[in-house]
C-alpha cells in the first residue's frame, strides 16, 4: 500500500518534468519551466528517501552535501562566456554518475556477495544486460564530454584524424558489448567478472575519445547536444538495471528530446548529423593565412566613428569574439550612442553564432540589451541591403559569403547573415586568422569592408567614446 502511494506520487514528479520541459522551450515561460523541473527532481529525491525508510544516512548526507556545494561553486565561478563549457562538464558528470551507479550495483550483488554465480543469475538477465549498457553509454558520455569541454576552452586544438575511425568505433563498441556480455552471462568467478567489467569501462572511455577528438571545435555544440542525449539514455539504462520506472521515464525523455535538439542544431547549420560526426571539418579547406588576403582596408575607431555618425540604420552582428572579449556591455554602449544620434540599431543573431545556439542571446542579455533589439537571421537578412552600416564583432564563418558562392567550401550551403549587401561593413577582429571552419573570408576583402583590428572590447569602447 505505502509503496503504491509513493509510486503514484512519483507520477507527480514525471508531470513536473514534462510540463517543465515544455515550458522551458517557450521564452515567456522558460524560467518557471526550469523551476518546475527542479521541483520534480527534488520530489523524486524525497520520494526515494522515503521509500527506503530508515537507513544509514551518512553517505547519503555526505554525497548530497558535497555534490550540491560543488555544483553551486562551479556555477558561481563560471563566466557568462563559459556557459557552454559548464554544460559540457555537467553532462560528463551525469554520464559518469550513471556508469558508477551501474558499477556499484555490480559490485554489491556480484563481487561483494561472494557467491560464485553469474551476474545474470544474481541480478536477473535484464538488470545484468542493462547494467553493461549503462557503463558503456555513461563512460562514453563522460570521456566525450570532457574532450568537448577541453576543445571549447581551447586547451585541445585541431582535429587529428584517426585512420578508419568508423571501423575503430564499431570494434570498440562491439568489443565493449562482448566483454560485458561475457562478464555478466558467462563468468561465475566474481574477480574475473569484475576485471571484465573494468575492461568494459576502459573500452567505453576510449570510445568517447575516438568519437569526439577528430571533431572540430565549431561542431562542439552539436556534439554536446548528442552527448546530452546519450547521458539521458545512460540514465534510462540505469533505470532498467534498477527496475526504476521514474528513472527510465526521465532518462528516456532527455534522450529523445536531446536527439531532436541535436537535429535542430544540425538543420541550423544546414548539415547532417553524419556529416558532423565524421569530423575533420575544415581540415581540407585552404587555410586562411593573412598572406592570402590582398586588398585589406583597415581603420581605427576614430575613422569608423565618422562614418557611423552619418548612418541612419546600423546592424550589429556579434560572434564568439564578442563573448571571448566580454564586449557585450561595450557593444550595447555603442548601440545606445548611435541611437542617441537618431540611428536605428539592431542586433542580428545567427543561429550558431558563438559556440552554442543561443549563446549570443545569453551573452547580450547579460548586458541587458533589450530583447526587441535582437533579430534572428531570417527576420533580418532581407534588411541588410537597406542598411547603412554593419558592425561585425568577432564573427567570421557566419558572415562568410563562401557559404553561398563556393560549392566546394566546407561551409557551403550554411545559411549566413548577408552583411555584404550593406553599404558599409566594419569588421572588428583581432587578426585575419580564420574562424572555426578554418577558411578564408572574402568579406574582409570586399570594397565596402573596413577592418578594425583589435580586442573587441577595446575597439567598441573606443567607438562608444568617439560617438558620445
Amino acid at each position, binding site marked *: 500500500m505505502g509503496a503504491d502511494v509513493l509510486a503514484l506520487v512519483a507520477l507527480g514528479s514525471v508531470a513536473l518534468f514534462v510540463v517543465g520541459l515544455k515550458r522551458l522551450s517557450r521564452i515567456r515561460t522558460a524560467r518557471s519551466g526550469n523551476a518546475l523541473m527542479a521541483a520534480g527532481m527534488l520530489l523524486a529525491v524525497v520520494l526515494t528517501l522515503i521509500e527506503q525508510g530508515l537507513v544509514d544516512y551518512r553517505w547519503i548526507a555526505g*554525497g548530497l552535501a558535497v555534490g550540491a556545494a560543488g555544483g553551486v561553486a562551479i556555477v558561481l565561478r563560471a563566466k557568462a562566456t563559459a556557459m557552454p563549457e559548464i554544460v559540457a562538464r555537467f553532462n560528463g558528470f551525469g554520464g559518469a554518475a550513471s556508469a558508477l551507479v551501474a558499477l556499484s550495483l555490480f559490485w554489491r550483488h556480484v563481487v561483494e556477495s561472494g557467491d560464485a554465480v553469474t551476474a545474470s543469475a544474481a541480478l536477473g538477465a535484464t538488470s545484468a544486460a542493462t547494467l553493461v549498457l549503462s557503463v558503456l553509454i555513461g563512460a562514453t558520455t563522460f570521456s566525450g564530454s570532457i574532450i568537448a569541454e577541453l576543445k571549447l576552452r581551447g586547451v585541445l586544438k585541431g582535429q587529428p584524424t584517426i585512420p578508419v575511425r568508423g571501423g575503430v568505433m564499431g570494434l570498440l563498441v562491439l568489443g565493449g558489448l562482448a566483454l560485458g556480455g561475457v562478464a555478466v552471462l558467462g563468468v561465475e568467478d566474481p574477480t574475473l567478472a569484475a576485471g571484465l567489467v573494468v575492461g568494459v569501462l576502459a573500452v567505453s572511455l576510449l570510445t568517447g575519445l575516438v568519437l569526439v577528438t577528430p571533431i572540430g571545435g565549431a561542431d562542439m555544440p552539436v556534439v554536446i547536444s548528442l552527448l546530452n542525449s546519450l547521458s539521458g539514455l545512460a540514465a534510462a539504462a540505469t533505470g532498467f538495471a534498477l527496475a526504476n520506472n521514474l528513472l527510465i*521515464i526521465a532518462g528516456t525523455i532527455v534522450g529523445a528530446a536531446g536527439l531532436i535538439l541535436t537535429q535542430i542544431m544540425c538543420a541550423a547549420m544546414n548539415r547532417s548529423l553524419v556529416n558532423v560526426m565524421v569530423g575533420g571539418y575544415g581540415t581540407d579547406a585552404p587555410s586562411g593565412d593573412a598572406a592570402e588576403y590582398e586588398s585589406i582596408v583597415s581603420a581605427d575607431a576614430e575613422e569608423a566613428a565618422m562614418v557611423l555618425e552619418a548612418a541612419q540604420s546600423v546592424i550589429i552582428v556579434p560572434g564568439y569574439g564578442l563573448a571571448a572579449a566580454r564586449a557585450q556591455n561595450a557593444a550595447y554602449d555603442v548601440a545606445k550612442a548611435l541611437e542617441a544620434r537618431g540611428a536605428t540599431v539592431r542586433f542580428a543573431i545567427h543561429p550558431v553564432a558563438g559556440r552554442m545556439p543561443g549563446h549570443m542571446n545569453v551573452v547580450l542579455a547579460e548586458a541587458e540589451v533589450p530583447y526587441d533589439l535582437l533579430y534572428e537571421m531570417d527576420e533580418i537578412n532581407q534588411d541588410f541591403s537597406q542598411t547603412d552600416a554593419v558592425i561585425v564583432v568577432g564573427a567570421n564563418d557566419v558572415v562568410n559569403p563562401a557559404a553561398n558562392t563556393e560549392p566546394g567550401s566546407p561551409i557551403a550551403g550554411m545559411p549566413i547573415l548577408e552583411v555584404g549587401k550593406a553599404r558599409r561593413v566594419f569588421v572588428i577582429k583581432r587578426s585575419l586568422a580564420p574562424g572555426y571552419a578554418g577558411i578564408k573570408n572574402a568579406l574582409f576583402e570586399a570594397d565596402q569592408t573596413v577592418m578594425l583590428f583589435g580586442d573587441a572590447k577595446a575597439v567598441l569602447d573606443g567607438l562608444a567614446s568617439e560617438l558620445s
Partner: protein
Amino acid sequence: MGTLLVSVYVFVLAAFLGFELINKVPPTLHTPLMSGANAMSGVTIIGALSLVTVADPDASVLLGTAALVLATVNVVGGFLVTDRMLSTFSRRN
C-alpha cells in the same frame, strides 16, 4: 504484463513524449534547453541514493557515493546554471 514488459512500454512511450515535447524551439532557448535537459539527466541521482544505504565503506558504497556526488553536481549545478541563463532574459520583460 510482466515488469520488464511494463518497463519497455514506459521506455517507448517516454521516447515518443520526448520527441514530441521539443519542436519549434526558438534558437535563443537552445542553450538553456540543452542545459535544463542536461540537469534532468542527473535523475540518476535517485539510483545512486538507493545504493549507499549502509555504513560500511565497501567498494559498492564508495562507487555509489562517487555517483551520488557527481549526479548531485549535475542536478544542482545544472538547474542553477539554466536559471542563471534565463534570469538574464526575463529581466527586461
